[in-house]
């Protein structure tokens, strides 16, 4: 959700539906981040090391390490959110209604998961 705010602040228009569909969103370096996040999520460390090593030709090691820091942090904090059935903050819910529908994030709502998986 903060990516939307970030776009507003920098006057850039991001295609947020791409967060779930895989189409380009418009963030610099996103192809590298996509792969980095996927390999981090899968704990595929050998493949990740190879990818980081190769990616330092196009992105600085400092940025790659900082990207790993964000990815691993959110791999942890999403566990807290998922494990607590946490609702959106009221203000966020009101301001992101259309965005959540268009991006498909609503599919991850806890009541829908309960219907789907139980």
């Amino acid at each position: 959700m903060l990516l939307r705010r970030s776009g507003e602040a920098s006057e850039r228009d991001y295609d947020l539906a791409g967060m779930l569909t895989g189409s380009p969103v418009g963030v610099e370096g996103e192809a590298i981040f996509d792969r980095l996040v996927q390999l981090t999520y899968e704990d595929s460390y050998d493949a990740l090391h190879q990818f980081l090593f190769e990616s330092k030709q196009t992105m600085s090691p400092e940025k790659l390490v900082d990207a790993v820091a964000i990815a691993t942090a959110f791999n942890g904090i999403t566990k807290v959110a998922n494990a607590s059935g946490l609702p959106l903050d009221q203000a966020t819910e009101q301001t992101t209604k259309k965005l959540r529908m268009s991006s498909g994030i609503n599919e991850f709502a806890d009541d829908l998961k309960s219907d789907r998986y139980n």
Partner: protein
Amino acid sequence: MPRYDISDFPRRSHIDIAHEAAITAYGKAGTWLDSRTRVKILEEVRSARDCPLCLEQRRSLSPYAKEGEHVSQTGLDPITVEIVHRLCNNADRLTYRWFESILAQGVSAEQYVEIVGLVATAIIIDGFAGALGYQTIPAPRAQGGVPTRKANDKVVEAGAWIPIMDVENEATETGLPKIPNIFRAMGLVPESVRHFFSVMSSQYSLTPFDTSLDRSQVEYIASKMSSHNQCFY
């Protein structure tokens, strides 16, 4: 596959310090769990990724269709093992019914929160080390001591599975509340909030922090990882 040594990639020292301190804290008695249990939970997180049952559940259309026993060598009770393994390997498909079943087996909401915090913290610390080719920080020795069992009554029902921290809230210029729900989620156990965010905030903040990435890149990575985890929040 050739091995690539990336251990010379530059790491930020404040992250290392935060991780060391957080791992040390596993060896101390918590609010509801004793030190031995806390250390075992750390060890369980470290072995859970190889659990065959979790792998089967992960491959299933519903992770609740596959029953069996998780592979565990820590001696933790089966309910705690179930919580740890679900969080490590199938957290994207947790349901309220599963949560209810955990409480029905005698785990208190406070114990559950403390376990969740310990698991999530370990996932961050070990994930960071593994991703950058470092050895994991060794599990500490359990130091004994007695859990404080200090309940926090400053919590409120806010639509989550568990009561969350009760705070006076106000919106910031980002449109988000000053204290977002994710910070309040483990409010039943304030020490879990402190422990988890001592690590989380060393790597990410809503306000400007040490990073070479611009805000859009930070939020892109965060959003992508949230998407992999099917995180509605």
